[in-house]
Every structure is written in C-alpha cells, then in structure tokens.
C-alpha cells in the first residue's frame, strides 16, 4: 500500500510550509515536495499607492530581512527619481554607508537568529533527539551561557538597525536619493563602547565567532554524515564587486558553475532578459530559472552557501572572516561546495563577516557627515527602477514602475527563497531518498522525518517572503464569526 508521509507544518522556519513524501509498495520514495501553503499578495495591491510608500509597505513582506526589502525598494526608487545606478549616478558616501551599516547589522541579527534559534538545536541535540528538546528552551537549559551571548549579540545587531532606522523592525531610513538621518556620534559610541545595556564592538567580534566554533565542533564529530547529507547540484549566484568579491549592497549578478566558471554575469537592471519563473499547481511559490539554461540546469542557489562559493575572497579589513573563508574554500579544493549542511558553515562565516564589516563602518567618520540626499535635477524622473541586494537568504530583487503623478503602476519582486525553490526541493528529495528510501513503515521515526526539515532549515527559508505574490483562486469557504454568524462567504472566481 502506498504511503503519504506528511510534515505539517515545517517548523523552526519563517512562514508556512508543508512536506509531502510519497512512498510506494516497495518502500521507494516516488515523490517528495516542499509545498508552500501561504499566500499574501503585494505586487497587485501596491499598485495605486504613491511610489515613496513602496519601501515602507514592501518591507512588511518580512520580519527578519526587512532592511533588505527596504533597501531594495530604496534603490529602485533612486532609479525612478533619476539619481540611481540606472542613471549612472553614484550614491553619496554618507547615505550609502548608512544603508550598508543597517544592512550588515540586519545580516548579523538575522543569521544569528536563524542559526542559533532554528538550526543549532538540531546540531547540538541531534536530529532525532526528543522534539520537545530541539529548540531554544532546550538550549537555555543545556547551555545558558551560550544563549546569553546569543541574546547579547542579537540585541547589538538590532540596536545597530534601530540607530539608523529608528525602530528595531520595520523602521524607516532610506528615502529616494539618500537617507533621512546619519548615524549620530552618540549612537556610534554606544555601539562601539557597549554602553547602556549593549556589549562592545570587541565583544561582538568575539561572540560572532561562536557560530563557527559550534559548527566546527559538530562537523568534526559527524564529518561523514554532514558531508554526505543532501549534496545537491545547483548553480550559485550573488552580487559581486569589481574584484569578484561578494557585495551585499550593490554589484553585478554573477552566476558560477561547479568549477566556478562564470556562466552568466549581468547588470541586474537586465534581469528580465535572463530569468523566467515557472509555476506549479502544488505550491504558491514560483520556480525561477535562467532562460538560456532551461529550468533544470538553469536553477540557481542563493544565500550564504552560494555567496561563499561565488566570492573570490573578502576584503583585508575583515581578517577573521577572510581566514575562515579560505578554510572553507580549501575544503572543496577550489570547486563550488554543494553540501547542503555546509550552508550553516557559510552562515557562521557570514555572521563574522557582518560584524567585521560593521567594525570598519563604525570607524568611518563619513557616517556622521550631513550630506544625506541627492536631489534629482528637473526632468530626471525615469518612472522605473530596479533594486537588488544580497538579503541574508540571498539575492533579492524589487522592480517598480510609476506614472508621472507618482502612482505605482507595476511591481515585480523576485525573492531569495523563491530563487532557492528548486534546490530546496532537490534537497527534500535527496534527504527523503537517503533517510526514508527502502525503509518499512515501522522503521520510520519522527527523527528521520526531521532530517528533511534539517535540510530545509539550512536554507533558512523565508516563506513569508516567498509568498508575496498573489496566488490561489478561492473556493467556497464559509467563515463563521466568534458569535457563530457567517461573516464572509468565499466564492470561487471565474477564471
């Protein structure tokens, strides 16, 4: 009798997903999929709103990488008003650095949150530990000192964001052409010296190495299993600077293959010439791919693993991260690394990289300068803009058009988790085959099923981001109110 094994919901991730594994009478996996089960819809309802609201509205797509959405929107608006990269205008140093500071602070807190609260419990306790233990409560019990450091590091990152965006989450800093405030001297001193309930910058650099230590320890003890776990092929993509190093805020989109050959490199303003997105009936999340390479071969991986694969090196101003990156590169002898769980290694390196990049910026006096906005000249308005940044989960793109009156007429978003859709599904299939394939039902445990989730968590998927697009047609669904009265009857639209 065939079986349908269901993980519902996938937990310790952001957003709503479900995994269904189909197994036949011979205990072989016939199908394994990650279904994204939520839908929100930003691209349509943003239309008709004033263009300057886009970075404020669209950052509400995500509670963990809102700075990335905010900056992506801001870069698109820079283009639109005529002072963006599409017009060949370089950004003023202070606003660019303020934006970068917020972005690195976000990467720090986002990676720290995902890594320690969602991923480390599986490493520390084991994938098949008691499900009640594999979480932050278990972590507090097992290693309270580590959790205290994590809390302090995360707090510092969040306060870094607040110091320029005004709020820890969903704040406002970028406006078309620049920013609305710089980093004040007091805020800078607080972050550097660790005043008023914060750790100091030196402590940040120290604590930011905890992730690497945890990974190394775990890797040393479980090398064979970690390396063999879902080694899935994919192209790798990220933004790079002129030197070929990852740039989280701006650069060209570079795509490399297994041998690190550059197979495509593009100005992101041309993305429509390169990318298509396929849709499947079984998921609200689309499947982007490189048109020239076809859907299977042209699917890319984005995020920490892709970035450390693509980047040639890091800047000398980040020596600790640079050394960690070299060790990572040596492990696969110059080839791109396809080992899913090494994404966590890459994430730990990036925690340190963000901290070191912030250190550089916090010592840069440009952040306290007053030249905050580039005002467009008359008739500079282009009415269209594309912004791309490296969000914690990978390459994020916003594209808008607006009319002369300032009304948004079009928006398209391609988010990191969506880019990873195909490779995540490959991972789910790979783990299902190796952990469940050939097993009688009696042998399958909750712990084995959790292995699939461990594979998904490595991508730190943000299914909230991934479901910004409008999706499903409604069927008849009756909604009864708290008082039992029907408050909304849903109907199926004609197609």
């Amino acid at each position, binding site marked *: 009798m065939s079986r349908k094994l269901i993980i519902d919901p996938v937990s310790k991730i952001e957003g709503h997903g479900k995994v269904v594994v189909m197994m036949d009478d011979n205990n072989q996996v016939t199908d394994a999929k990650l279904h994204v089960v939520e839908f929100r819809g930003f691209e349509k309802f943003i239309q008709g709103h004033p263009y300057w609201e886009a970075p404020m509205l669209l950052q509400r797509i995500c509670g963990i990488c809102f700075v990335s959405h905010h900056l992506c929107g801001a870069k698109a608006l820079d283009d639109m008003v005529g002072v963006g990269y599409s017009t060949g205008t370089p950004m003023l140093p202070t606003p660019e650095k303020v934006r970068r500071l917020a972005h690195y602070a976000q990467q720090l807190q986002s990676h720290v949150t995902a890594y320690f609260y969602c991923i480390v419990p599986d490493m520390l306790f084991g994938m098949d530990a008691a499900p009640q233990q594999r979480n932050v409560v278990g972590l507090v019990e097992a290693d309270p000192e580590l959790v205290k450091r994590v809390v302090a590091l995360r707090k510092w990152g969040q306060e870094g964001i607040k110091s320029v965006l005004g709020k820890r989450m969903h704040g406002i800093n970028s406006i078309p052409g620049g920013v609305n405030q710089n980093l004040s001297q007091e805020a800078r001193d607080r972050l550097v010296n660790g005043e008023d309930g914060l750790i100091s910058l030196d402590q940040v650099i120290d604590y930011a190495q905890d992730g690497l230590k945890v990974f190394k320890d775990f890797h040393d003890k479980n090398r064979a299993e970690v390396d063999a776990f879902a080694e899935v092929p994919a192209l790798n993509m990220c933004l790079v600077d002129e030197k070929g190093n990852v740039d989280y805020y701006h650069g060209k989109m570079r795509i490399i293959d297994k041998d690190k050959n550059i197979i495509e490199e593009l100005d992101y303003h041309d993305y429509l010439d390169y990318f298509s997105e396929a849709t499947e009936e079984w998921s609200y999340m689309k499947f982007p791919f490189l048109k020239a390479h076809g859907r299977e071969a042209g699917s890319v991986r984005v995020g920490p693993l892709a970035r450390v694969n693509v980047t040639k090196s890091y800047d000398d101003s980040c020596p600790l991260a640079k050394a960690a990156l070299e060790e990572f590169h040596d492990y696969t002898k110059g080839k791109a690394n396809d080992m899913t769980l090494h994404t966590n290694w890459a994430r730990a390196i990036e925690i340190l990289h963000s901290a070191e990049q912030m250190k550089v910026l916090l010592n840069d006096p440009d952040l306290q300068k007053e030249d905050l906005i580039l005002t467009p000249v008359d008739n500079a308005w282009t009415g269209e803009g594309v912004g791309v940044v490296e969000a914690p989960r990978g390459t994020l793109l916003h594209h808008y058009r607006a009319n002369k009156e300032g009304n948004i007429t079009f928006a398209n978003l391609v988010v990191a988790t969506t880019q990873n859709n195909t490779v995540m599904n490959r991972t789910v299939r790979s783990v299902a085959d190796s952990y469940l394939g050939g097993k009688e039902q009696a042998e399958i445990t909750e712990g084995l099923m959790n292995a699939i989730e461990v594979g998904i968590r490595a991508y730190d998927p943000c299914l909230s981001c991934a479901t910004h697009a409008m999706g499903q047609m409604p069927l008849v669904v009756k*909604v009864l109110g708290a008082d039992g009265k029907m408050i909304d009857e849903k*109907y199926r639209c004609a*197609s």
Partner: protein
Amino acid sequence: MSQETVTEIFSHELPATQWDPKKKAIEEAKIQVAMIGFCGCWGCHLSFLDMDENILGLLEKVTITRSSFTDLKRIPHHCTIGFIEGGIANDENIEVLEHYRENCDILISVGACAVWGGTPAMRNVVPLEECLREAYVDSVTAVSGAKKTIPYHEDIPKITNKVLPCHEVVKMDYFIPGCPPDGQAIYKVLDDLVNGREVDLPTEMNRYD
C-alpha cells in the same frame, strides 16, 4: 496510483525519542504558552525575541509548546496562553485558530495583522481575479509559451477572499497593536499575565506603526 490505497501519516504521529522525564516534569510545571503565526511576516515572533535578556527570566516561568520556534506540530495539551501573530487568510488558518481557541485559556492578538489584518489586508480592496491575472497570467517573468498555471492542489489550502482580523473568527482576549509591537510591550503583557496582574499596556508603549 489510485487514491483509496494511500495512507496518510503525519511525522508528529510517528515514534519519537522520549523526552527526559525530569526535564519534562520541570517544563510541564511552568505556564504553558503556544504560539503561531498566520498571515504575517514573523516579525512579531522576532519581536518576542526582542525582549532580549528578559526572555531568560520569562523562560524560567513559562515554557513554549507548539510554536515556529519548536518542533511541536500540534498543541500537546491545554495551554494557558496562545500568542497569535498574523491575520486569517486561508481555510487552514481558520481551523488552526479555532484549535488554539479550544486549547488555550487566553488568546492574544499580537501585532497589526492579527489585530486588524495589517498590511496583507490591503489586498481586501482588490478583486481577486485581478490579483490572479497579475501573478500568474500577466507576470513579466512567466515562461513564454508555457501553459498558465494557477496553484491549486489538495496539499495547499484555499485562500479566503479577505484577510480577517483574528477576533472576527474567534474571541480574542487581549490585543497588542504595532507593526511589530516593541519587544518590551510584548514582555509587559506576558509579564502581567504570568504574574496574575491585570494586563495594562501603557499609552507610551502602544503604537500602531
């Protein structure tokens, strides 16, 4: 493959490693909190973490059962507090929210989306048919020449026409507005509840943006 021969098995119903009975006893003696995010951005859950070091003190008194921070897929037993993020946007959200209502003494709407629908509720003024066209028929990145597909499958839920505030589906006991509410506002409400005080969010901590 004929439908009738397929057996559905949920991962959380499979045999699992047993929890250390001593740890189980310690956690079960605490106040039980279940959490869930519906149609939102997870920001209110992260704002929960934004209570910073207060979380360590709080976790001495409460434990988290079902939540996106744990691997418990269902509420394991009756809970005192249900922490609800997000508005209601599909049939599954409705079922799960009703399940939380049945299994929690107190439900809190946390954040703008749970309180009134929030930013996702901006789709409430747009007819769905136009939305579908935008996303799948007229999408600029649609595969040229391919059949236009609109997701529709037994394994994904059906979307409601409007995003609803939680209290329009079940009774909610407390509301913490904000997008998201500050971590300290969430802490204040939980701390009041845990210590048996009347919940009082001071005006200066109340915010809608």
